[in-house]
């Protein structure tokens, strides 16, 4: 080991010493092994379920039967995308997927616009009524109005059974307003002043200066909103009564959590349907995949996004 390190030039050597300062003793083998095992278990607990779900969604009947009708860890020989084909060629899952994508897209855009607008207003501390409105926003962080009153309001607004009931109540998240406002206030204020002297209106300043400089925070908060809309379950459960209008989370609950069987009513083509378990797992993959796809992009930023308020204190 040491000879190998010596052979690899000095740059390698210095990067190694940066990892462990000179004064730090080499950890004992026992501690190293324990650490390794604990972390390995933690990682496995996260990854194995996903892998198993994915593998089962690809497996055919023979493979699933071979594992006593349960989950598999390897899709085996007969692996195919048959479950996905069955689910995505029309029917309940396809429709729910389109609905969820629509709600997520529309909701995220509207949320970002409303949040950025409000944050911009509040970030200019000399602006009209910024103080009292900021108090309202802070108050909204501290409490939520409760289930029954919220339901009654949505009912009064005749939003029940409308997709707007999944967007409007969660349109503005007070936290995100505060994070974005803090970010806007960090921007060099001289830019705004000089633009204003040059005759730019507040709208021009927002669209030409503030937003282009805030791409990072817009991305993080936009992705937080998008994940929220995609995951929306409970609001859909209480507000959307017609099952034809359900988003993917409710479909997941019906067919995977509650194990209702997927049959002729649910898919367009019932010829040679793949095993139930494969299709259930395929729904689970479909519901999870968008998050796994956007996750690396949020992941780069979210520590900053989450910490912005805390660290600045």
């Amino acid at each position: 080991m040491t000879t190998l390190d010596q052979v690899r030039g000095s740059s390698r050597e210095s990067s190694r010493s940066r990892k462990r300062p000179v004064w730090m003793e080499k950890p004992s083998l026992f501690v190293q092994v324990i650490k390794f095992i604990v972390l390995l278990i933690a990682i496995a607990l996260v990854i194995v379920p996903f892998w198993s779900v994915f593998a089962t969604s690809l497996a055919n009947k023979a493979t699933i039967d071979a594992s006593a009708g349960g989950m598999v860890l390897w899709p085996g020989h007969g692996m195919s995308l048959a479950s996905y084909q069955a689910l995505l060629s029309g029917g309940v899952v396809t429709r729910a997927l389109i609905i969820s994508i629509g709600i997520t897209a529309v909701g995220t855009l509207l949320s970002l616009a409303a949040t950025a607008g409000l944050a911009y207003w509040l970030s200019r501390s000399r602006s009209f009524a910024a103080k009292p409105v900021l108090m309202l926003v802070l108050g909204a962080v501290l409490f939520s109005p409760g289930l029954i009153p919220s339901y009654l309001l949505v009912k009064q607004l005749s939003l029940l059974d409308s997709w707007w009931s999944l967007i409007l109540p969660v349109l503005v998240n007070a936290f995100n307003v505060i994070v974005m406002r803090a970010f806007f206030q960090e921007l060099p204020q001289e830019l705004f002043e000089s633009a204003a002297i040059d005759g730019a209106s507040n709208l021009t300043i927002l669209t030409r200066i503030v937003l282009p400089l805030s791409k990072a925070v817009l991305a993080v908060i936009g992705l937080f909103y998008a994940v929220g809309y995609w995951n929306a379950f409970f609001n859909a459960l209480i507000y959307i009564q017609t099952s034809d209008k359900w988003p993917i989370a409710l479909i997941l609950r019906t067919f995977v959590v509650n194990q209702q069987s997927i049959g002729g009513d649910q898919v367009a083509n019932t010829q040679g349907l793949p095993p139930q378990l494969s299709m259930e797992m395929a729904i689970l993959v479909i519901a999870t995949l968008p998050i796994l796809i956007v996750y690396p992009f949020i992941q780069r930023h979210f520590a900053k996004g989450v910490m912005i308020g805390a660290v600045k204190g």
Partner: protein
Amino acid sequence: MGQSSLIRPAGEAVTETVPSERATGVRRRSNWARRLSRDKLLVGIGLPGAIALVLFQYVPLLGNVIAFQDYQPYLGFTQAPFVGLQNFSFLWGGDPTFYNALINTLILTIIQTVLVFPVPLVLALLLSSVAGERLKRLLQSVLYMPHFLSWVIVVALFQQMLGNAGMLNTFLIQHNLPQFHIIGVPALFKVLITSQTIWKDAGWGTIIFLAAISQIDQEQYEAAAVDGAGSWRRLWHITLPSLKSLFILLLILRLGNSLNVGFEQIVLQQGPVGRDASEVLDTWVYNNGILGGNWGMSGAVGLVKMVVGIGLVIGANKLAHMFGERGVYEK
């Protein structure tokens, strides 16, 4: 989890206006009509968001009037007869299902505070001791990820892993071992809920501890090592004391949040285990109000819970201030 998110506004008050701006603000405040006309575009940009916030955060508070009414949907707020405090009789009248929900909530709060709460700290200590930035970042990415999944997905994953036809039991059957049932077993419901919470949010909870660990002065460790302190003693005498105030702060915030225990998570799994084992305050309100049509009393329970919740948050902040911490908001 709520803890880490609740902290965010902490820095908020600090980023308030600088004094000079405040002074000019005072001067101009005399003429608010002129300021409105000057800022009308700015206000116009922000107003949709402000309206949405007020409409869905503050206007619903008016709906709490049904807590004092015999509300029926076909009558509406205006027609429903007022019944005084009758809906609050659960406080003294002793509705057994309500007490069951209250007790379950408190038990879950205690379990989650004792068992769930320290896990992120331990994980963060482990992660921070991993040599190699790239490996550390990879581990973090994997461990944070479950936080972004919805409860439906988490519950479904748990069913597929631990359920009667799940991976674990399939494996046990194949190897002629006794099966292990946890899903749908009332006695183990709280264990299940707790392990799901750990699985979903323990990794995410490490963020704040890792940030705090990275801010500890490295020279302290060096000095201690020179004085002959081994790694355990450095952990015990430097790392943990440095994290003490953060830990206390998070604990206090958790207490302020103690009436909220996994609503979606429990609603999803109530069916098989029954209400005795699984009912908490939030699900009680949902089951009796929206599903059961007992609007008045559910509204009353919701109202009491909200008021107690606000009281707990304010009390928790007082406590944080007493410990010399900043809390969710400034004094």
